[in-house]
């Protein structure tokens, strides 16, 4: 089996431990100075790609992100974690947030340019929880898709994946090329060691403006955030003495 070229898509997100605040204006969250990191599911996808290369099944791992110039940080981390080359599809800061539709469109153009055999993504980003980019990308490319992958094995011209579904585990055999999205139990990512961070500085990181990749100005996003608010504060619970009192309270609140 000839070694494959793997493209991994990653996203820079607000770190999961940070307490997020709605930004003034109610259109987004406070991002300035807030700790960001590599999306955990993207990290798992990248780890799987690097392991494929270490086994000899893959020849090259290219990592890509669509975002502002700050996304370089996560691409450098990805290079330190084992990717060979990075591409940042750059958008100017201050614009509306890109959704899965825009990212999938950009990635499909990148796939046309790079010709990978396999695209690995995280199943969803922890900031918007959309879980759509992998699926939209596969449809745009008319490729096979395996989402929520918890186990992956390459065969001649195909990939056998185990998917974690609500009803259980499903095993599929997909012909290559394919788009896969990684779920939590696919692997345990490695740490980025300091020597590899230092080596990663010398690995190529290409900045590619989005209009240049698309060959035309990008279409405006079709989704607009109307309003963003904190969930309502938690009301205290109330104790009742017996079932009769409970029914009385529920009736008084108009619930029954």
């Amino acid at each position: 089996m000839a070694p494959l070229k793997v493209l991994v898509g990653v996203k820079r997100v607000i770190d999961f431990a940070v307490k997020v605040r709605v930004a003034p204006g109610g259109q987004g969250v406070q991002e300035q100075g807030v700790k960001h990191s590599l999306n955990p599911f993207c990290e798992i996808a990248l780890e799987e790609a690097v392991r494929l290369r270490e086994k000899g099944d893959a020849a090259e791992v290219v990592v890509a992100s669509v975002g502002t110039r700050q996304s370089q940080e996560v691409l450098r981390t990805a290079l330190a974690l084992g990717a060979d080359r990075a591409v940042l599809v750059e958008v100017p800061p201050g614009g509306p947030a890109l959704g899965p539709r825009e990212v999938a469109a950009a990635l499909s153009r990148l796939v046309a340019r790079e010709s990978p055999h396999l695209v690995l993504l995280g199943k969803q980003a922890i900031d918007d929880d959309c879980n759509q980019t992998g699926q939209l990308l596969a449809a745009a490319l008319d490729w096979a898709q395996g989402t929520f992958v918890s186990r992956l094995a390459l065969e001649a011209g195909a990939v056998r994946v185990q998917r974690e579904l609500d009803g259980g585990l499903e095993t599929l055999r997909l012909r290559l090329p394919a788009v896969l999205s990684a779920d939590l139990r696919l692997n345990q990512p490695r740490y980025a060691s300091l020597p590899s961070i230092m080596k990663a500085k010398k690995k190529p990181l290409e900045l590619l403006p989005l209009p240049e990749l698309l060959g035309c100005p990008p279409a405006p996003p079709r989704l607009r955030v109307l309003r963003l608010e904190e969930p309502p504060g938690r009301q205290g619970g109330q104790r009742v003495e017996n079932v009769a009192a409970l029914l009385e309270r529920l009736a008084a609140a108009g619930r029954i």
Partner: protein
Amino acid sequence: MLLFCCPSSSRAAHQCFRALKLINRDCLPSLRISRCASTASVPRITTHYTIYPRDKDKRWEGVSMERFAEEADVVIVGGGPAGLSAAIRLKQLAAEHNKEIRVCLVEKASQIGAHTLSGACLEPRSLEELFPDWKERGAPLNTPVTEDKFGILTEKSRIPVPIIPGLPMVNHGNYIVRLGHFVSWLGEQAEALGVEIYPGYAAAEVLFHEDGSVKGIATNDVGIQKDGAPKATFERGLELHGKVTVFAEGCHGHLAKQMYKKYNLRENCQPQSYGIGLKELWTIDEKKWKPGRVEHTVGWPLDRHTYGGSFLYHLNESEPLVALGFVVGLDYQNPYLNPFREFQRWKHHPTVQPTLEGGTRIAYGARALNEGGLQSIPKLTFPGGVLIGCSPGLMNVPKIKGTHTAMKSGMLASEAIFNQLINENLQSKTKGLHVQEYEENLKKSWVWKELYAVRNIRPSCHSILGVYGGMIYTGIFYWLLRGMEPWTLKHPGPDFAQLKPAKDCTPIEYPKPDGKISFDLLSSVALSGTNHEHDQPAHLTLKDDSVPVSRNLAVFDGPEQRFCPAGVYEYVPLETGEGSRLQINAQNCVHCKTCDIKDPSQNINWVVPEGGGGPAYNGM
């Protein structure tokens, strides 16, 4: 709890004997029997390799402990104001003299500024020296001080104290800053000058040449399980070697603690004295917002024998923001004192609460700070290394400012180091350079003059008049004589030794948090954004696992459950039988270092966790 795998059977046996002697025989639960030959009736808490060495641990047999090494000219530990100023100054000098020097800086926070916490009122003196064009470069000094207020609080009212020119806390010409953002900006300037900055990597070990001088540091290992065994992802840290290593860890650094012992740096100075500073950021009602206003108070809720006070600064930001906080001197005597709850109840004072009403708390954090002053500064240089900034402790306590002196010490260290680096005729007795000129120059600089003038103010609070004695002393000796009195007052001893036994003290009744102005501890800790990879050995290590229950709880009623601002230490009832055990919630730690300072048994040794863990402060 079972003891699994005794790394060294004789050590475990010694622990067992000590534990058996201290614990009342009647309380020994019958279920506490381990599989090992030696029985310890104390549940095992500490698993860190600094307490249980890996070369004696069977689980580490065959694991490669080899480390890669990188050579630099200067290695800097810590990316705060001191460390970054030192890095910047080195690169500035290198550019001036057309020399190439490699400067590597490691910082345990995941990004520069994420572990920085301070009031803060910045005196721009050192910044002006480092970057005369700081304004054009966009340094985030956005709030010039416009109003300075000082008051003594009683339970229901406030006595205003006029701030006359000449008193140490006059803030004219200074800026209220969000120090985390300032440090972030310094980091950008340093990177632009070519400093190699590595956030997310903690310096865990100091390395030595055979001649005993410092060779550099090694960053933390990764991939160790909670019980101390190696994971599949185990990797050794990297060794960074330098001709000089600059230790800029901030207040009570853990590597500096080792250097004091090894090189006997503290033999001619007073023990350091500390305070804990807790801080919150609030967005408030626009009508109450007065950007540039600085307010300090002393008095309530602390008594005159407990040093401490509050700050409240109005920041000039895009939203109405105030930074407020409370400092408690860690030489307090009552083990029932809870600095976090003192802070929370202070906010309810009738002159403070109105400012916060209708506002929202958006951040919380805490950090220890130095209060020892000149008397507590140790020797600053040793073969191969220097100490700068809050690590040796250069804070001007009555001014409540340490950033300007920290930055200046970094700059002076770099100038002295650079001179040795380019001196082709240098004859060094040791492989690691001993840069004694740094300490000599610091003593000739304005930093020393300033610290000398205020050296007696903090110790003057130890008299029977307490804090008010200090204020009277300041008025007479500082305001009139500028500290020229010929005597130098002493501190009564180290902070941890000041705690009185619980039986001699009265518990303090703290009001319950109301959830609008005052809050509970856990929701506060959540706002610090702190987190650590949970499957790693707890970095709050105990030299002896039996001491917390046998001494801290028995004699002092477990003061660590009160002075920790992050709820790391909890005494929980044992699952079987009577008694308690200490539970360490290491994930909550905000790296304030208070436990290492105030533990009356000095049993807690704070070491670095895996790099990147800890708080995620944003402009604190």
